[in-house]
């Protein structure tokens, strides 16, 4: 069950993600083409507010977008009772945010 606010949150997070996905792919191609080692990558990302902000925002947008999408899939596939949907959405969103945040922290801090 998707209402107005969830719909808007999913569309706005998609808007945020679109340029970030393109930026992420461009960075991956650059890193591979230039044969950057892990040490060289970490030397660019560690302590960088820019890369922390870039991937931090990416993780936040993914957590919102995917949690709402998976909510709809779970509801329509398993007929989950409506009362479980909000806790389920929050759990998925927070789980993704923590996992992604951990990865960002690992390369930025």
């Amino acid at each position, binding site marked *: *069950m*998707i*209402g*107005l*606010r*969830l*719909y*808007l949150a999913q*569309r706005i997070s998609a808007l945020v993600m679109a340029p970030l996905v393109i930026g992420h792919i461009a960075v991956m191609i650059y890193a591979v083409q230039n044969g950057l080692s892990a040490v060289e990558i970490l030397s660019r990302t560690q302590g960088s507010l820019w890369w922390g902000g870039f991937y931090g925002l990416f993780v936040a947008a993914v957590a919102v977008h995917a949690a709402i999408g998976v909510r*709809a899939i779970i*509801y*329509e*596939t398993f*007929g989950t009772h*409506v009362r479980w949907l909000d806790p389920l959405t929050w759990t998925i969103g927070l789980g993704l945010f923590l996992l992604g945040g951990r990865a960002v922290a690992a390369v930025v801090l």
Partner: protein
Amino acid sequence: MSKQRETELYRPGETLAVKVWRGNANGGGFHAYTVPSQESQTVLDVVTWIQQNAEPTLTYRFACRVGMCGSCAMMVNGEPRWTCRTHVKKVIGDKPLEIAPLRNLPVIKDLAADMAEFFDKWTAARGQFQPSQSRDDAMAAISPDEPRRAAANAAIECINCAVCYAACDTVAANPGYLGPAALNRAWTLQSDVRDDAFAERLDAVSAGGGCFNCHSHQSCMTYCPNELNPTASIAGLKRLSAFSYLTGGKSR
């Protein structure tokens, strides 16, 4: 199906193999019948022949027989169709013609589906016109070229046959979803300058089971016998609701 194939399979003067679902809310199954083929025979003609000649207790629903009343829709070879305007030669295949009650609705008996849920959702989407003027006021002058009127006109010819409702996979997976017909009706009223329930209807169509559940599969558009596009109407409601919310036009 090619014209040649249609001709091979359809032979007026001979017989048709037909399977009709018979049963009730507790269950049922397909029964086989042999029906004489006729020129320009519709699926409703086939059902009527069976009821009049082979199975007097067969229950089905129809009224106008000319595609106006929307009461004769059934599943034909697994697809929802208005049976009075569906020629047998358009749908016949290698297997017996299979006729069943509409998908996504409870069965009352045989081919008669229970439409209560369909119309309850139509009401839940505030499908009723709410007049903004009384009979004493002058008649509203509305130009057919006015953009909102043009948007309403594009969606207004719905006959409430529930073909779109039966075709919709989102309805199948999400029983609380209002469905394409109810939301299409709401869109026509949101586009009607004479209507006085714009905000209330926007609340109704943007709530939990409303327009935001549509995945834009477009089955409603594919199967609508009147060639309407409820997916576009639902997209219009999404736009209206979202912009209204973002601009402070509504509270939800």
